[in-house]
């Protein structure tokens, strides 16, 4: 499906990442490698910097005027924090799905075709192909194929979230960033999204922020634990959840603080 011809073990290498909102430091010296073809979960208590971390990875953080960043975020070796980076291309390669489904108030079709159109794809048949393919990948096609022209707002919450995933996939990204993608969904919709994420990791590199420990344990291959803006521990998910190295990780995942 995706023809990202690279055999790199890592997609992103984050080096000494520091971030301040005004005078408040939100991330302190975070260094971590995001592995290819894996789901990496970012966990930690509210306000620990999870979402901030995610937003740095596709420079959505630029939209926060008070944010100041230093350090390196290497995307296949290229530092995306450099000024000359083309943000449109970057955000095409590194797509994002948010906590609350946020479809455009347009038709289902237009939601998915939006990105490709902006990137200059005009051929109707090509667009239709992308829309179908993306909706299929997002496991939504069967449910909406007969009503592509209806408003996206008519879909259920779980469907809207899958539509947002389809919208991100339509840009043919390499990395998907997901910020608590299921926290607004019911259990059945949550499990559908989780199944989808498991399937998607064959073709995409995924970083997911979640407050749900069981979800992180079920879904991810690697887990990183942030606390007060610092990376406490990053390791194989199984190890983190059965036998973490750091006492603070243990206390957090067992619910003794946080």
């Amino acid at each position, binding site marked *: 499906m995706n023809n990202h011809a690279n055999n790199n073990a890592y997609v992103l290498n984050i080096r000494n990442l520091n971030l301040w909102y005004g005078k408040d430091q939100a991330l302190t010296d975070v260094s971590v490698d995001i592995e290819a073809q894996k789901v990496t979960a970012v966990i930690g208590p509210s306000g620990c910097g999870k979402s901030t971390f995610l937003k740095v990875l596709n420079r959505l953080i630029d939209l926060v005027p008070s944010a100041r960043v230093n350090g390196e975020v290497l995307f296949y070796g290229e530092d995306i924090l450099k000024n000359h980076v083309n943000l449109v291309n970057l955000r095409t390669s590194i797509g994002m799905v948010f906590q609350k489904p946020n479809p455009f108030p347009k038709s289902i079709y237009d939601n998915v075709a939006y990105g490709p159109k902006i990137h200059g794809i005009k051929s109707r048949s090509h667009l239709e192909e992308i829309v179908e393919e993306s909706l299929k990948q997002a496991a939504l096609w069967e449910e909406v194929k007969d009503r592509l022209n209806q408003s996206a707002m008519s879909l259920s919450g779980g469907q809207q979230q899958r539509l947002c995933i389809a919208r991100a996939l339509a840009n043919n990204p390499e990395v998907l960033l997901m910020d608590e993608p299921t926290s607004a969904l019911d259990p059945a919709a949550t499990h559908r999204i989780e199944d989808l994420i498991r399937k998607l990791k064959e073709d995409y590199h995924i970083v997911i922020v979640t407050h749900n420990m069981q979800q992180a*344990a079920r879904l991810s291959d690697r887990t990183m634990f942030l606390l007060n803006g610092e990376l406490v521990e990053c390791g194989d998910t199984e190890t983190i*959840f*059965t*036998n973490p190295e750091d006492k603070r990780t*243990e206390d957090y995942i067992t*619910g003794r603080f946080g």
Partner: protein
Amino acid sequence: MEQRYEFNKSLDTLTQEIIIMGSLVEKNITRAIDALANQSLEIMKEVIETENTIDQMELDIEKNCISLLATQQPMAKDLRKIGAALKIITDLERMGDYAENIAKVTKRIGDEELIKPLIDIPHMAQLTQGMVHYALDAYVKENKEQAYQLGENDDKVDHLHNQVFRELLVLMMENPSTINQATQLLFVSRSLERIADHATNIGERVIFLVSGERVKIND
């Protein structure tokens, strides 16, 4: 209030229940050998009654563990604790079965005079009962080193079992009329040897609980 007060309390209760179940098993090992040595059907009945309690405790504790897994979403050490508990009660229940089997030999031997004074078998029973006690103590204290030490005693019990086996074999060859009773005593020795193995298993669960490592103590 400390965080997760209710859950912490449930975990403490779980440990306590395992200790109670374990002490019943210990008692039954000793009493089973008493029944045998004294050829007492009374004691045998006591053992069987206690065994029913042990079986019921296993079911109750298992139910508690499953309910904690379902409702508390345990992680890390909490998860290991409940996982270890589920395994430990299985070992304890099995030990209880062996103790019952030993007690029932009393009935099969009946009033027959014992073919030899019971020396090695009570010694084995003492060792294995001690191992169960030591294993549960290691569990309560979460003491990894203590758990590892169970291996040495397990070797001793294995050695005694071989010794008993050889002795009984010689007796049977010398005098075939002893075969019935000798075979029964062999079962007893074999049961004790198995109890010691299960005690060693508990030690392995303690090591898992403390460190997350899965090891074989006696390989």
